[in-house]
């Protein structure tokens, strides 16, 4: 484990909007310890040697293949990294699990089976189970002897999960619940031995159960014929008077939604780590191809149009990775802080994941969209070969798309981001009103025309601080004007979330580069500076556009004028030659022949 010291003054969830972060306490991937890197390397080796040579067979769902690979992963310890030692696991911290998730992310369909088993399939028992339940299931889930699935979605309840229709009725002797209903799109549904299943007791008490797949009345549907991740098992599941012992209730009756939603926070965060890891591998394939493919007598990586794509992919991956580790360590730090105060690991993990639910939702959106960008450009860079199944780009393209849909669609996550922020503000967990008022006041004053600041990325620092003001002023005005009606103005909410995502990711890249400047020499540091600059200048333009869309949809007259003026002021950024910077970044990638940051 990396660091055992307790970090003080952790940023609370959502506070990035109103506070600065100290680059020195922000965790960056370069901070991973030698052991953490060895574990990640071992995961990468596993993916390269065990999964990649079998991708076609996995996608054809060769009988028992995924199951045996999960068991092999279990033998090597990959299924039990998050499980405490007392339950037979390795008890690794959150950052180690992040590093492993990055590597497993590049394993296509297997990664989905892996994530479903270790995440939503195991964590509910780990975090909500009784000691008996944990002793019974965790060692076997960690070794791979048991495979798990998480069954929330139903044919008529997807994003609106609480409208589930599956029922649970207590038997007269009080020993069992009888479950009836149908579950849909269940990952690992074809082979799972246990099912973390949600059903309503007495018609309204949303409750979580552990179902044994050998139970009478439990039936699996056919494998879905999917667009991508074809190798992962996805089926419907049918519960026809399935008898579940009362001791298999997970958590409390009527409190299943806590499990459903809190587990998703961690899942969302993990999804970003996995998609970013996958994006690295895909981007590397594109770089290698661009170096090999000759047209007009030279490698296509010589051409500006291709360099632009290579650089743009790397920038997005770099930023996504920076943001992911930043959040990983916030959650990690919070867990350790709570444990130091006497909390059990399970309680601490839940509180920490809830604390950073806003960041988790933003990361889910960002990571899945970064991967979608990278796979799209992979097909494009590969040209005709990108459309052929002989090259890795086509599979990457098909497999990426689901990430914007599962673990809460990106639309739901965008809505949740603002919704959670507003609720926290109302409950007094975070003071947005004070800073928002201060910004409004600043808007009325004369802008400062001070000389430009000096120092590494000083202009970018200023831009980030200003962007925070832009978000506050627009979100604040929208809330004031629309009050309760804001929740019906989804377009405005999406705009505000997109501004927040640009801001959070920009700041994460900035913080990483500043921290890196402490131990990289000028030459090594340069590409990081370049990537940070290009990203932030783009983000400022995007924040400006999203801001305009938001403002014009609710403000009029003088208010409209004032807000537009404020937005302009707070997203001002001196244009720079980004073409030159992108070319320099691309040249580094071309030389390394892979993603190298």
């Amino acid at each position: 484990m990396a660091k055992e010291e307790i970090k003080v003054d952790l940023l609370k969830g959502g506070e990035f909007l109103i506070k600065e972060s100290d680059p020195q306490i922000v965790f960056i991937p370069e901070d991973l310890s030698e052991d953490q890197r060895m574990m990640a390397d071992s995961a990468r080796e596993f993916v390269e040697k065990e999964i990649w040579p079998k991708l076609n067979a996995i996608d054809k769902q060769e009988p028992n293949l995924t199951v045996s690979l999960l068991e092999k992963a279990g033998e090597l310890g990959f299924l039990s990294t998050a499980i405490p030692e007392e339950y037979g696991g390795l008890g690794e911290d959150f950052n180690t699990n992040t590093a492993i998730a990055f590597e497993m992310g590049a394993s296509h369909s297997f990664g989905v089976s892996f994530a479903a088993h270790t995440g939503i399939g195991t964590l509910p028992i780990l975090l909500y189970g009784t000691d008996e339940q944990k002793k019974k299931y965790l060692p076997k889930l960690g070794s791979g002897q048991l495979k798990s699935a998480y069954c929330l979605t139903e044919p008529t309840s997807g994003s609106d999960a609480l409208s589930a229709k599956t029922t649970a009725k207590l038997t007269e002797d009080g020993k069992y619940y009888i479950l009836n209903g149908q579950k849909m799109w269940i990952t690992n549904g074809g082979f799972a031995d246990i099912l973390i299943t949600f059903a309503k007791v007495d018609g309204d008490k949303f409750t979580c159960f552990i179902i044994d797949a050998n139970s009478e009345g439990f039936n699996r549907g056919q494998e879905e014929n999917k667009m991508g991740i074809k190798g992962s098992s996805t089926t419907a599941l049918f519960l026809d008077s399935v008898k579940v012992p009362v001791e298999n209730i997970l958590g409390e009756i009527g409190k299943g939604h806590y499990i459903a939603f809190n587990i998703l926070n961690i899942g969302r965060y993990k999804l970003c780590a996995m998609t970013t890891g996958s994006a690295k591998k895909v981007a590397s394939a594109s770089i290698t191809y661009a170096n090999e493919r000759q047209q007009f007598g030279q490698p296509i990586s010589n051409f500006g149009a291709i360099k632009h794509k290579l650089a743009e992919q790397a920038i997005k991956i770099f930023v996504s990775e920076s943001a992911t580790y930043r959040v990983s360590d916030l959650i990690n730090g919070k867990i350790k802080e709570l444990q130091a105060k006497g909390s059990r690991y399970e309680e601490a993990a839940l509180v920490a994941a809830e604390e950073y639910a806003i960041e988790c939702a933003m990361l889910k959106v960002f990571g899945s969209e970064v991967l979608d960008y990278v796979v799209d450009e992979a097909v494009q860079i590969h040209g005709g070969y990108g459309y052929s199944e002989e090259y890795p780009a086509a599979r990457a393209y098909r497999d990426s798309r689901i990430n914007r849909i599962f673990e809460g669609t990106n639309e739901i996550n965008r809505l949740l981001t603002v919704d959670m922020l507003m609720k926290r503000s109302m409950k007094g967990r975070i003071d947005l009103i004070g800073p928002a008022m201060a910004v409004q006041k600043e808007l009325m004053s004369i802008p400062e025309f001070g000389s430009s600041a000096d120092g590494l990325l000083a202009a970018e620092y200023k831009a980030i601080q200003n962007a925070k003001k832009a978000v506050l002023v627009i979100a604040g005005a929208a809330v004031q004007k629309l009050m309760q009606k804001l929740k019906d103005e989804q377009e405005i909410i999406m705009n505000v979330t997109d501004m927040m995502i640009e801001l959070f990711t920009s700041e994460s890249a900035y913080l990483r580069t500043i921290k890196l400047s402490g131990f990289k020499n000028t030459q090594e540091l340069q590409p990081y500076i370049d990537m940070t600059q290009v990203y932030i200048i783009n983000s400022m333009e995007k924040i400006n556009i999203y801001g305009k869309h938001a403002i014009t949809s609710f403000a009029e007259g003088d208010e409209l004028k004032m807000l537009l003026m404020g937005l302009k002021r707070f997203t001002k950024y001196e244009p720079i030659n980004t073409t030159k910077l992108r070319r320099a970044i691309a040249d580094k990638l071309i030389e390394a022949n892979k993603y190298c940051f």
Partner: protein
Amino acid sequence: MKIAVCVSHVPDTAAKINIGSDSKNIDQNGVTFVVNPYDEYAIEEALKTKEKFGGETVAISLGGDANKETLRKALAMGIDNAVLLKDSGFRDSLSVAKALAEEIKTQGAELVFFGKQSVDYDSSIVGQLTAELLGYNCISVVISFSLDGNKITCEREIEGGKEIVETALPALITAQKGLNEPRYASLKGIMAAKKKEIIEKQPVAAQNYIEIISMKKTESKQAGKIVGTDSSAVPELVRLLREEAKVI
């Protein structure tokens, strides 16, 4: 039985190598280092032999602190002990062999595994030199190894085929690709390795007989030229071979 395996820490074969400013070393900037790939087969064979016959395994590496990473990997794969012969200066093959032989003697290992070559300097000779210094039997470029009592039977790769040879302990084997499928470091192995100590020692001093004067990169090949597709191109081809390539 004590089994030793000698491992080196080398630039990743996928890494792009540049010559350093002194032109006597490579520029290590941005280059990742890994366990020498052939040494992974050596480690695996040492582990398999121990699993079959019992005993104790030790990994030995000569180099700077960075070599600890490679030793840690060997420990994570299951090797029992690790020794770093700490010396980051340049040593030629014989000087390396002398240091390794001395340590193998100290360890009392009767069976020693090497990779057939280390993919940095590629001299492909350190194993054989070490065997000679120890007075051990040596079989190189081995693709199959079996031990029965004191008797060792190996298959080794030769031009266009393979030969089967026998020898007896004490022996030194150099591993070729195909000998086995090296295992992964399991996460439990990595955690166990964390608790093991890497013993640092001062290697014996030895004279270098070879000095690196300078390193140069091979010049990249020019693209080929197609002069024509039928017999009418022959005169032009002859002219080019004579005047440009100057080979006829």
